[in-house]
């Protein structure tokens, strides 16, 4: 084969990397052979013919790669390695359709969007009634209407959960879980409002975020679509806390915007029945809502001038980034840990203990950071708020020890995974181990703009210039999302 053709084939083989992995595994070898033959034939007709052919191939490859990625995202892709089997008897190919493309029905999709839409209406009604109450000096109107609507919503949640139970908990029911969770946690939320800062009972407040984190992790083991659905309203709910600083008009508009968007994304995710696409949609929603809320908070607040933030882009980014990062962790964290667990299981006898060490370390780090937030500041309704000097040395010590456990566990897992060649690419293995390793650092960057003592091990990025640390962390989010949505194994792990 002439050098030109050989070179063209190598370049073509590299370009095939643009296709989704399932497509590559099924067709890349054949495509290279076909390309090489075509190039060899065309070369005989001259260099111009060869250039024309290469141009056609590049265009076809680019269009094809985009089209295949789109289909992969829409879950239409054919996982040839798993689903195409040559029947030795009849010589026919069999295609497994059941798990391949099974979009949710419109009814299921709308049921997934309904609670968020209702929440939008609920909050908008309350804002309007509050404004009316102020204008007419009528007392208790907001309370009466608010409680009535809340009771109706609670009954509706109960009915929906009953329907869900009868239908063996389909994915769409997960949209209703967060609201059911709020109902269950109401006593704790009430308690948190009425406890003194020094009351030891405040430690109970840790139950709220830890429960959320554990629920996310446990659900991620069984159904990753549900993880995304559960996380969606958390973004809108937590940004909703800031709405109290806006004028009623902005409050209503932002509320309706946020909840409608959440509803639309939930509908799209269930309709497409694709958790990988769901992760990206979640990040897009989170970024969009965080951006609009941060802009509104900086430019359209009705906070007294002496307390209001400066009306600058820097302030917008300062409000946007920590929230966006913490929401991203909510989804990426459990999925990354789940992927690490799978890597551990496939990495021989040392793999699982290494993963368990990481898991334990992460749990300790999380408790310590949340402890700092909840026990000191009492900002129990905002996951990420302030991390002032707590004076609680056990938090700093705990976070450091947890961080050390994560580092050692990751090293162990990385080495054992590389030795056992669990993944074909060493770079991917290192990335897969290193990205979750950054989780404690992400916790620390969330507190970037806040003064105070933190563990030396866990907060190095905090001392970086804001622009650098923000860029690193946003890169982490993109890398993390890419890793959790990637197909690492030819045979997808069974959901336990």
């Amino acid at each position, binding site marked *: 084969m002439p050098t030109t053709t050989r070179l063209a084939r190598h370049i*073509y083989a590299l370009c095939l990397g643009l296709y989704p992995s399932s*497509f590559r595994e*099924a*067709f890349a070898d*054949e*495509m290279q*052979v*076909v*390309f090489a*033959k*075509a190039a060899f034939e065309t070369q005989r007709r001259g260099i111009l013919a060869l250039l024309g052919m290469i141009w*056609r*191939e590049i*265009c*076809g*490859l*680019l*269009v*094809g*790669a985009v*089209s*295949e990625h789109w289909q992969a995202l829409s879950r*239409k892709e*054919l996982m*040839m390695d798993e689903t*195409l089997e*040559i029947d030795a008897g009849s*010589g*026919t*190919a*069999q*295609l*497994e*359709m*059941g798990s391949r493309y099974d979009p949710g029905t419109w009814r299921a999709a709308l049921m997934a969007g309904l609670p968020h839409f209702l929440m939008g209406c609920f909050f908008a009604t309350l804002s309007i009634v509050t404004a009316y109450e102020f204008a007419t000096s009528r007392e208790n109107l907001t309370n009466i209407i608010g409680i009535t609507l809340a009771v109706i919503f609670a009954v509706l949640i109960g009915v929906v959960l009953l329907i869900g139970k009868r239908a063996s908990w389909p994915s769409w029911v997960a949209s209703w879980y967060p609201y059911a969770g709020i109902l269950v946690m109401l006593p704790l939320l009430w308690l948190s409002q009425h406890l003194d800062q020094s009351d030891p009972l405040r430690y109970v407040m840790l139950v709220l975020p830890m429960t959320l984190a554990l629920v996310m992790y446990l659900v991620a083991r069984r159904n990753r679509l549900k993880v995304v659905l559960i996380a969606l309203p958390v973004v809108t709910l937590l940004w909703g806390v800031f709405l109290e600083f806006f004028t009623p008009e902005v409050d209503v508009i932002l509320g309706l915007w946020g909840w409608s968007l959440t509803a639309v994304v939930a509908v799209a995710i269930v309709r497409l029945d694709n958790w990988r696409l769901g992760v990206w949609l979640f990040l897009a929603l989170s970024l969009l809502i965080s951006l609009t809320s941060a802009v509104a908070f900086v430019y359209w607040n009705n906070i007294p001038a002496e307390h209001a933030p400066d009306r600058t882009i820097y302030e917008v980014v300062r409000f946007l980034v920590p929230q966006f990062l913490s929401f991203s962790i909510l989804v990426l964290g459990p999925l990354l840990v789940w992927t690490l667990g799978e890597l551990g299981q496939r990495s021989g006898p040392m793999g699982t203990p290494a993963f368990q060490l990481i898991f334990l370390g992460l749990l300790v780090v999380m408790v310590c950071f949340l402890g700092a937030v909840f026990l000191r500041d009492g900002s129990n309704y905002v996951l990420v708020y302030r991390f002032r000097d707590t004076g609680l040395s056990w938090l700093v010590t705990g976070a450091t020890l947890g961080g050390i456990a994560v580092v050692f566990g990751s090293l162990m897992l990385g080495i054992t995974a590389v030795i056992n060649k669990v993944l074909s690419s060493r770079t991917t293995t290192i990335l897969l181990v290193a990205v979750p390793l950054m989780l404690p650092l992400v916790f620390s960057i969330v507190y970037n703009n806040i003064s105070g003592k933190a563990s030396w091990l866990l907060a190095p990025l905090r001392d970086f210039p804001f622009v650098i640390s923000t860029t690193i962390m946003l890169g982490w989010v993109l890398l993390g999302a890419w890793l959790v949505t990637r197909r690492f194994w030819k045979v997808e792990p069974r959901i336990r």
Partner: protein
Amino acid sequence: MKYLRGDELSGGREILEELPLTETTFFILLSLSPNPKHGYAMMKDVEQLSEGRIRLSTGTLYGAIKRLLEDGWIKRVEDHNTQEDGRGRKVYALTRYGRRILNAEFDRLKDLVAAARQVYAEG
């Protein structure tokens, strides 16, 4: 496990819903109608059958092959004529369902031509 095989699909209405075929799909199916072929032979056939009008790139060809496999119109089988390294080469063949679609498209095109001929003859 639920399997769907092109051979097992039946029903005229289903076939009519697949028509009309795109020119590329029609030529790919037509290329496979006499006997199973590998990718490069299909590419050459399509160019020849279309009198040079359609030159498929490898990416376009395999995108189409994937969809046809997915829909059960063609199947991938081992080539009995193994390569020099002893490995079996993959070739593609029409399924019974794919052949019925091709025939239906052929009949549709024939009807169109017949209608046009009649109009020209009368005119």
